């Protein structure tokens, strides 16, 4: 069970990081700011 939780946390870290990078860089490539709402 503990191992499953560990695997889950590692997977979550990888996936969240990956999707944030996708969101940030693909918006950036279009000259847009992904973090617009948080900066304003």
């Amino acid at each position, binding site marked *: 069970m503990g*191992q*499953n939780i560990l*695997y*889950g946390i*590692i*997977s*979550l870290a*990888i*996936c*969240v990081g*990956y*999707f944030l990078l*996708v*969101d940030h860089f*693909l*918006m950036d*490539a*279009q000259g*847009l*700011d*992904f973090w*617009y*709402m948080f900066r304003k």
Partner: protein
Amino acid sequence: MGLVTRKKVFSIMALCAMVGLLLFPVIVSLPSLAIGADAPDAAKKEEAKVEKGRDVYYKTEGIVVGAPAPKTVDGPKDYPRYNFESRVLLWFANQQHLYYGSFVLAVPIFCMVVEFMGVVTKDKALAKRYDQLAYDFIKISLTAYSLTAVLGGILIFTFLTLYPAFFGYLSSIFRPVMHIYALMFVAESATLYIYYYGWDKMKEGFLKWIHLSMSVILNIIGTLLMFLANSWIGFMMSPAGVDEQGRFLGNIWHVLHTALWNPLNLHRILGNMAFGGGVVAAYAAYKFLASKTDEDRAHYDWMGYIAMALGVAFLIPLPFAGYWLMREVYAYRQQMGITLMGGLLAWLFIIQATMIGILFLSTNYYLWQAMGRMRGAEKYQRYIKYLVFILACGYLVFITPHTMVMTPAELKAMGGQQHPVLGNYGVMSAKNGGINVIITTTVLSFVWYMRGNKVSTVSWAKFGNIFMGVFFACAYVNIVGLAIYGYYIPANVRVGLSVPQVATTLSSLFFMFALNSVMMKGAKQTGAIEWGKISARSQYALIMLATAFTWMMGLMGYIRSSVRLFWHVNEIMRDNSPWAYTHTVGFAANMISFNVLFFWISILFVFWLGSLAAKKAPAGEKAGVPGSAPQPAGSH
């Protein structure tokens, strides 16, 4: 010379002849070198006299070499007619030609893919089955090919008879490539017949590779044909290479390469492939339902699955190609985009969304049913209800209109044209979220299907499974999160969110398919796939898939054509016929339904003709058809 060597020489000669046929139209269209040598001097002499014009799209200057677009008037000279709406007759002829054209361009591509799979697979029995399947595919398309040519002829005669001024103008603009199109068609016919009739003679070894190369040439010719035909509609929507009066400026590449040509090419290739897959899958479904033996049922079940999988492989990226096309439409003329998606034709997009949703729902339903023929796939059955829920949510958001058609009393009761709650789902931010959720769920269903009867044996299987689950969960959160985020930021930033949403869906598709393939390498099988042992309901899902696709193609063609409103050629040549208005949604829907019905009745006739040929075929031809014996797991 031995028989084998002679065969090789003949097959290489046939292949060279095909390459020659492919290049022939291009060579014919090259300007003569002798003329070219004199051309500069002649050009200098003429320069003083010639009139120059500015390209309406490229903004470059060019020498006027064509007549201006005719200013037509309503009358027998420009618009001769029968006692019937000419536009409807043209609509019918055009749509039928397009249906058959799409079918006969798509099926040889399937055929090439399946034949290639047969050549590279190491399992000899499976290779033989793939080869038989590819042969079945091409056999279906052969009769349809003749009908396509006949319908093309009817279309040209309809144009010449009912719209002579417009067709004359279009022909004058495309004159440099008109004969290339005709010669390409000859090349396509010759290649197709050599490819089909050479099947038995070139079935092994080096000859098989030559045969496969022929299919590549056949498909290059077919694709070029389609690109040329697309350039006409591209020119009608977003003209280029002419001045503001519609006079040709001598650069045919500008006329071909209009603003919308490339998006149209991509959209049509993917659309044709998905449509072709749907039609072949429906054919297989019909044959499955009519089969009397287990052997036939197994064969047609397998055929239906392969056709459906190939079709859906092209259906998944199709909405993204559609977005690109719409984006280019907006970039070309913003008003055109607004007419399409926010104005006169917006309601048709709601119908389109409904049809797209039906396509994906049918695909998912088929896959869930198909898991029933695998022992071991039961473990996923209890989770399907959650997928149904996710799909239903995505679908309902995707089809919600921005505004409602209401009576004044209803409008007053609701307090405006937008529903206070549902109105929020009628915007692109929500719709992008809806369709991406639907596609991601379809990817998930495919992954479940591919691992249905397998258990991974890799040492990191547990981590792989958890990672896969977390990846899909995060993909859903990201898609829905971006959709919600879109409500809180300005429109110019919001419009960019569709790109990461699409990237999320495509990441799920590519990464999860790749991860699943690696995990399932050398996997333990919990049971074989029992081809033929699938519910009849699944076959009706395939028929539904094909019918919905046919209807949607008709609808999208109508939308694309209608966006020109009262122009034959947008902003260049005005349509002055009495039918230069947009039909009501109801009339358009009836017309599309009639076209769909006609296509399916006529293609049933084509299938029937094909079955007559099959009955006359020698008994040995059926060898290699997959039997009811368990199939290798690798075959899906």
